[in-house]
């Protein structure tokens, strides 16, 4: 497992060095190319702003009003019937909506139940194997001005649902005795 942490530590520096060496070797005006590419980054960040504000206000209001908690409580009994611990429900619901909130819940679950507990492991796996669909959708489509999303949201959320169910099955299979 030391290899794993070594890779995550060395990946970015090695990548940067490689791009720079290869660019120099191919006689690319590296610094000028860098600046040209970087300019686009500023434009992108600015164009995302309204999309993010719209989505994040809606999510913040939804949480603050208590509507989210009530929804969690509705779904809870149904999930407990199939043996899914209720503690995980808020995380599963929040994960597609807000990355930072999900991370908060995950660390909370790991802290309260212990990192090696079933719930702690399940939370960690869930956090690692799914992504914040609403964020990805807002940022990616917002930046390039896609207004009609087609089936994108449906596909993304269904994929999330599958990921959550898979995580539960895998962790149950590998960790509970």
């Amino acid at each position: 497992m030391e290899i794993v942490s070594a890779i995550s530590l060395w990946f970015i520096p090695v990548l940067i060095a490689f791009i720079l060496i290869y660019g120099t070797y191919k006689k690319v005006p590296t610094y000028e190319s860098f600046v040209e590419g970087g300019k686009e980054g500023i434009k992108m960040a600015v164009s995302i702003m309204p999309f993010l504000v719209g989505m994040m206000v809606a999510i913040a209001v939804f949480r603050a009003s208590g509507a989210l908690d009530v929804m969690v409580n509705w779904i809870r009994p149904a999930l407990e019937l199939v043996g899914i611990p209720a503690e995980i429900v808020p995380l599963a619901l929040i994960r597609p909506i807000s990355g930072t909130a999900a991370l908060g819940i995950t660390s909370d679950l790991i802290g309260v139940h212990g990192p090696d507990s079933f719930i702690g492991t399940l939370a960690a796996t869930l956090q690692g194997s799914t992504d914040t669909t609403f964020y990805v959708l807002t940022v990616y489509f917002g930046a390039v001005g896609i207004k009609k999303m087609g089936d994108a949201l449906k596909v993304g959320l269904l994929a999330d649902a599958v990921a959550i169910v898979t995580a539960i099955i895998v962790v149950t299979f590998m960790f509970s005795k």
Partner: protein
Amino acid sequence: MVNYIWVFMILISLGFAMVNGTMAEVNEAVFTGAKEAITLSIGLISILVFWLGMMRIAEDSGLLSKLSALFKPLISKLFPEVPSSHPAMGYILSNMIANMFGLGNAATPLGIKAMEELKELNDGKNEASRSMITFLAINTASITFIPTTVIAIRMNYDASNPTDIVGPTLVATAVSAVAAILIDRFFYYRRSKKG
């Protein structure tokens, strides 16, 4: 659809706040939510500028097209609409690789860039193309090899072996990525049937 979800979320919340007496919290959330969004986009600027600068060098030196050539068979199956030598391929691949190593911050600029190229392929329409939806599905299913953040949290709480979730995460991520592609294909065929 997003329009309805967005309006629904806000209106339900307002209705809820009225019944539950959480109007003060909701008022505050309007402003903190907006502020957080701007803080987030400002924070993104540094990362976007740096990685798009680096990637421009990779593009100009031909590194990106080399990378796409390497994975061409796999990617052209997933994205049949994208010509194999198109720069979109390079960005899609780099985004997937960044995600695999849990480099969420580096992955975002590449993903946006990929979307931009895909939009161009779609004649600049403001409608999501088939490839865009596929790319999004793969992204939200998030193929991860090393869930860096989660490992860090587990270390913080003194897990006996912080990295032992790598195994289950890999299995879960692989299954869900395959599922995402299948779901995406199902919706595509449903769309094309309708015409």
